[in-house]
């Protein structure tokens, strides 16, 4: 059971998830999020190393992710570094966790039913 939320919190919080799901509906962007979730702040050069994706393409994808509030950038000297903004992603995954728990409950009931 998820923690209770007021209607105000719900209506204030959920619309923010809309662009998150759209932003994640792309394999390159999902890979970027996965890479950034391993920790730390990474430059574009580090993010493109070992991949066939160009710097320009990665920059575009990062901008889409930033627009959805999933990543943010900051400057360190002459370099621009990117990092994950984990709160948005968590919000998007909360719904899935609710349904996931419903499955756990249903499968526990199935288990006691067939093992009787």
């Amino acid at each position: 059971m998820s923690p209770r939320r007021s209607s105000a919190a719900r209506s204030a919080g959920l619309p923010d998830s809309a662009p998150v799901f759209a932003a994640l509906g792309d394999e390159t962007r999902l890979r970027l999020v996965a890479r950034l979730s391993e920790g730390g702040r990474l430059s574009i050069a580090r993010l493109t190393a070992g991949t066939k994706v160009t710097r320009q393409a990665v920059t575009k994808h990062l901008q889409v992710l930033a627009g959805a509030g999933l990543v943010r950038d900051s400057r360190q000297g002459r370099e621009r570094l990117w990092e994950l903004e984990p709160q948005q992603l968590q919000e998007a995954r909360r719904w899935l966790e609710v349904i996931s728990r419903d499955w756990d409950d249903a499968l526990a009931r199935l288990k006691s039913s067939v093992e009787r």
Partner: protein
Amino acid sequence: MAQANTDKIEKRILLRAPRSRVWRALSDAQEFGSWFGVQLAGRFEPGARVSGKVTHPGYEHLTFEISVERMEPERFFSWRWHPAPVDAGVDYSKEPTTLVVFELEDAAGGTMLKVVESGFDKIPLERRAKAFELNDEGWGLQMKAIERHVAQAK
């Protein structure tokens, strides 16, 4: 962070019963309803639409409806639905569905059941908000109550 996947849920559970027994609990609509928590009319067969009411007091306004896709006895069962309980007064037919797949395999001591539900990224946002709302009304608690009921009936 474990994973960035928001599109699917995957479960595995070892059931200490033969595949034939697990298959019956999945493929017989009445028996399925008994553990899933719905009263179903009709039979599960490929192409069938099967629906029923959630049976518990205070939750009769919720309906359960699935479209059966594939059935391979004792091995594979899949359907599509609108995930989480549905408000009977709302037409969801135009909305995308998620795909639920059950796969059964022999395992030491019984049957390994794998369940994958996928397609969540295509579900509209209002629907997710509704799911939260229903959950907040105590859907999760209700399901716990059913679990206790089944355990006591043993």
